[in-house]
């Protein structure tokens, strides 16, 4: 049994219109439009400084665009957590254990707190559940961060570099967890360098170049989870 509820049938969508973000005179994002909805897993590809992380923060609402609008709409119940983000940071308290971090977030999101261990297990980090997060390696810590995010069960899941610093087996587990969320009708957006692995789970990919969408490639028919993992 997983900590997330089953497909709620409710849909959520993100509509970004003419989003521009400038840092001083540097263009991070330029006039970007994006439509995305439940059940999609969008992989945002592009080199360093192409604007991937900035885009994710803007979609999360933790960074205000210089111009343009982002609307996250759907049919949210009053106590729903709409957007969850694992950015460059993992949003964890270093002096709490992995389990405590997941439980804290789940509790505040009014989700099951007792699913923490299962969530950590799914990402292959259950053995570290009772260790202080500050003592964990970067890769483990990122997976604990993702477990924390999934335990809050948001409608929109935004993850920056979900596969960075992970070995193949660990990256496969992360990909699988994201694919499960996609199939449960969540909207998942990831920013990654790992074209190969993201292709196996994405429904669509965007390639960013200097803050613009350079190319959009529909991945086509959705690969079943097992197939996608075999490809990875």
């Amino acid at each position: 049994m997983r900590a997330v509820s089953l497909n709620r049938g409710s849909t959520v969508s993100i509509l970004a219109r003419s989003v521009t973000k400038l840092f001083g005179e540097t263009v991070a994002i330029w006039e970007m439009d994006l439509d995305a909805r439940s059940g999609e897993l969008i992989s945002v590809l592009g080199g360093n400084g192409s604007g991937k992380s900035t885009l994710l923060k803007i979609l999360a609402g933790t960074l205000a665009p210089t111009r343009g609008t982002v609307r996250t709409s759907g049919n949210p119940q009053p106590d729903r957590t709409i957007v969850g983000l694992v950015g460059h940071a993992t949003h964890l308290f270093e002096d709490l254990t992995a389990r405590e971090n997941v439980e804290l977030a789940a509790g505040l999101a009014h989700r099951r707190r007792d699913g923490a261990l299962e969530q950590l297990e799914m990402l292959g980090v259950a053995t570290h559940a009772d260790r202080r997060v500050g003592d964990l390696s970067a890769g483990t810590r990122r997976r604990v961060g993702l477990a924390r995010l999934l335990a809050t069960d948001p409608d929109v899941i935004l993850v920056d570099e979900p596969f960075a610093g992970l070995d193949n087996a660990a990256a496969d587990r992360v990909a699988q967890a994201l694919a499960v969320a996609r199939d449960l009708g969540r909207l998942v957006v990831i920013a990654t360098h790992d074209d190969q692995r993201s292709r196996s789970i994405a429904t669509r990919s965007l390639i960013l170049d200097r803050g613009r969408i350079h190319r959009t490639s529909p991945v086509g028919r959705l690969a079943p989870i097992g197939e996608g993992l075999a490809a990875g």
Partner: protein
Amino acid sequence: MSLLVDAVVLARKDIRVELRAGQAFGSAAALAGIALILIGLAVGPQPERLRSLAPAVVWIALLYAALAVAERLEQIDRSDEAFTGLWLVLTDRRSLFVGRVISLSVALFLLQLAIWVAATILLDLPVRPEYAGLVLVATFTSLAAASVIALVSAVVADADRRSLLVPVALLPLLVPTFIAGVQASTALLDGRSSDGLLWTGAAAVEAGLFIGVGLLAYESAARPD
């Protein structure tokens, strides 16, 4: 209702981290202790003068200790952008304010009592029945100071040169609480309990006002974008 429930969860998180790492209270208490010793050294063995200075000494020591506690609690949240994670998860973000007010008040309350105990010994203060009133003074002044600190800390959370800015931004706004605290404890030490009660009431009014302002303005101050 979820506001209070979440706030208690958040305050417990602060307290749990503090009990584990123990940095905030320890460094704040050390700072307060140094302040007490320094004033003793400055004035020398003159019991009368030390006694008359006691409330001011305690409160100046407390203000500096409060800055240390505030800084540490803020650092818990800012490290690894843990605050952003909380912000996105919460339905009612004011619980972050209320939670911080609770944990800060607890810390300031305990600090204030600890400083009084130390001052009583070091400055040789007479112990009177009115002394019990100090608990009430500590309760309301801690609440008032905690709500100002929680709100202003959010305002200056990611400012440049924060370590310099925090005292400059905070101390002037803590002046009313300082006046009420010093006056209430002076009155109690002098055995004027009705005056002490009046000033404690003033601290309570301040606490109410600042909590109200905090509830209204906190989200604007703390939103990460």
